[in-house]
């Protein structure tokens, strides 16, 4: 059994209530931080922990916190990114639904460290029931004196609010999220200035993912060094992986970073192997935006080393033979799955979710969807395959936010590793490994 930091008490009955959560040691980090530590002391422990952003980018959290403009006399904000919308990713929903107080405790301790007096949790609107769970838990925390004026008798005060989104993948991008929180369309901002200088309402702001913030209480309670002792190299601590697709046991698992992909995929403790005795074809390891890898490259690197669940090992080989840990959305495809159809589906997603601000993304995602649609539906040309590569290249790096890359990488990697399957679709449209429903679903919105 690997070390559990976030999900240790997930199975305890009533853990969603303040009473049970406190019995299991909950809110200790708030007491410790406020009574025994300085805000900078908390930031220091988070730096020492080596914790990296768990939303997908993997940027060191302590460093992000230290960029916060301390000279500014404006209010500072901590905003939690709970807009979880990356296909394949469902860990934050699980965490907030089961242990809402863990996120709230993390928000209080982190807000103290950053000097924020008002903080927000931005939850995607579709998770309305999660918003209700969080609101109930926040009310409990206010009643117990963990939120509001003079928390635990200290001179630190904090208000915490939950903000619903309205249905937009792009709002997971931190500046689009801030625009949305200001009551606007979710159009990402040009950077710099970064949110640490010009964030919510033009004030210094830190935006962190749910899981990142939920890691902070353990780090404060046990020390940054203890956290850094878990994991391998620069991949410290644990990570929530949401596993789905053709596996025996889809679900949310907390792993110690450094676990081998093979063990994660095949052991009974985690995915339990490929479902129905089929063979593994490919894996998208970190949410739909990261490059897809064929079976042989997800289990071992191009240098024939065991592939590990770490930021470094998964990206070994760059995008030629590697991928990314990303959000931890682990999507498994068995040998029945059609790569072309899956790619068309994902590309339709990015086309639908492009905010429309930058032409390469707005137009390019639509072109890619159209070309993939015709290949998948038996009207493709051989030249379409290179056309897709070309369009993907012309989106990448030419947009304000990373949605451009998110749309381009799956296309480039699918063709890199599965070109023969695309060619076969063009040559013989009926040869597809899975008999598809060649029927259109209407674009409803």
């Amino acid at each position, binding site marked *: 059994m690997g070390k559990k930091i976030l999900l240790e008490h997930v199975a305890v009955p009533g853990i969603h209530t303040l009473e049970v959560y406190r019995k299991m040691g909950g809110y200790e980090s708030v007491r410790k931080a406020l009574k025994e530590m300085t805000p900078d002391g908390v930031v220091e422990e988070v730096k020492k922990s080596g914790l990296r952003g768990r939303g997908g980018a993997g940027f060191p959290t302590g460093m992000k916190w230290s960029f916060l403009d301390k000279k500014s006399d404006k*209010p500072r904000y901590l905003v939690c990114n709970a807009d979880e*919308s*990356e*296909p*394949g*990713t*469902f860990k*934050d*929903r699980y965490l907030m639904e089961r242990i809402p107080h863990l996120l709230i405790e993390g928000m209080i301790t982190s807000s103290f460290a950053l000097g924020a007096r*008002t903080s927000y949790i931005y939850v*995607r*609107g*579709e*998770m*309305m*029931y999660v918003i209700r769970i969080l609101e109930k838990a926040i009310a409990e925390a206010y009643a117990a004196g963990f939120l509001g004026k003079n928390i635990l008798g200290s001179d630190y005060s904090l*208000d915490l*609010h939950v*903000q*619903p*989104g*309205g*249905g*937009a*993948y792009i709002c997971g991008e931190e500046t689009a999220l801030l625009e*949305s*929180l*200001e*009551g*606007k*369309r*979710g159009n990402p901002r040009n950077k710099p200035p970064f949110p640490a200088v010009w964030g919510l*309402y033009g004030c210094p702001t830190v935006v962190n993912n749910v899981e990142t913030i939920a890691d902070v209480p353990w780090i404060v309670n046990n020390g940054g060094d203890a956290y850094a002792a878990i994991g391998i190299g620069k991949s410290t601590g644990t990570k929530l992986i*949401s*596993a*789905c*697709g*053709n596996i025996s046991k*889809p*679900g*949310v698992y907390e792993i110690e970073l450094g676990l081998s992909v093979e063990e994660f995929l095949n052991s009974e403790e985690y995915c339990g192997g490929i479902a129905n005795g089929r063979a593994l074809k490919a894996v998208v390891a970190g949410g*739909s935006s990261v490059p897809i890898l064929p079976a042989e490259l997800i289990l071992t690197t191009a240098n024939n080393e065991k592939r590990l669940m770490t930021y470094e090992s998964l990206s070994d080989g760059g995008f030629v033979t590697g991928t990314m840990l990303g959000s931890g*959305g682990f*999507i498994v*495809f068995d040998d029945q*799955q059609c790569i072309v159809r*899956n790619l068309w*589906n*994902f590309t339709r*997603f990015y086309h*639908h*979710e492009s*905010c429309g601000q930058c032409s390469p993304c707005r137009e390019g995602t639509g072109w890619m969807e159209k070309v993939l649609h015709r290949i998948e539906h038996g009207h493709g040309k051989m030249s379409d395959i290179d056309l897709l590569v070309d369009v993907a290249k012309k989106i990448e790096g030419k947009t304000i936010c990373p949605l451009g890359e998110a749309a381009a990488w799956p296309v480039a990697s699918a063709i890199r590793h599965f070109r023969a399957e695309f060619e076969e679709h063009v040559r013989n449209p009926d040869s597809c490994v899975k008999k598809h*429903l060649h*029927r259109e*679903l*209407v*674009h*409803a*919105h």
Partner: protein
Amino acid sequence: MVFSESRLKEIEEIKHRYPEGRHKSALLPVLHLAQEDHGWLPVDVMDEVAKVLDLHPIEVYEVATFYTMFHVKPVGKYVLEVCRTGPCCNVGAEELIIYLEEKLGIQSGETTPDGLFTIKPVECLAACGTGPVLQIGPKYHYHEHLTKEKIDQLIDDLRAKA
């Protein structure tokens, strides 16, 4: 009257979540309330939202049309929002959308003649491990591990409730 007295009170409370002068932040929460009350967001409702939040109507229109959860055209009493993204499709979401269309006699995006149901395929709902998944506003409860039998039951229950 677009908003009831108790709703107006609720809206005032929401405005207090934000700093002085930043009440525009209340727009998304208030649009959710308006849609819950009216089923969708006709122009007069959006205009009233603009009024209670002291915004220009265009500020409300441009936001309501950006986010997929807001219905700016009439919809049925129950909008069946079914995930159509990759992981759900690999466990049968497309077949279930077609089943729903045939069962209700409408296409995706359409509303049944009795005004009860609209089918609306949506993108990933973060339930990829428990798909296929469908949700129905205004509570947006998740119906996971969806099957034809579960759809039959759900439609029967909603018809009985209506």
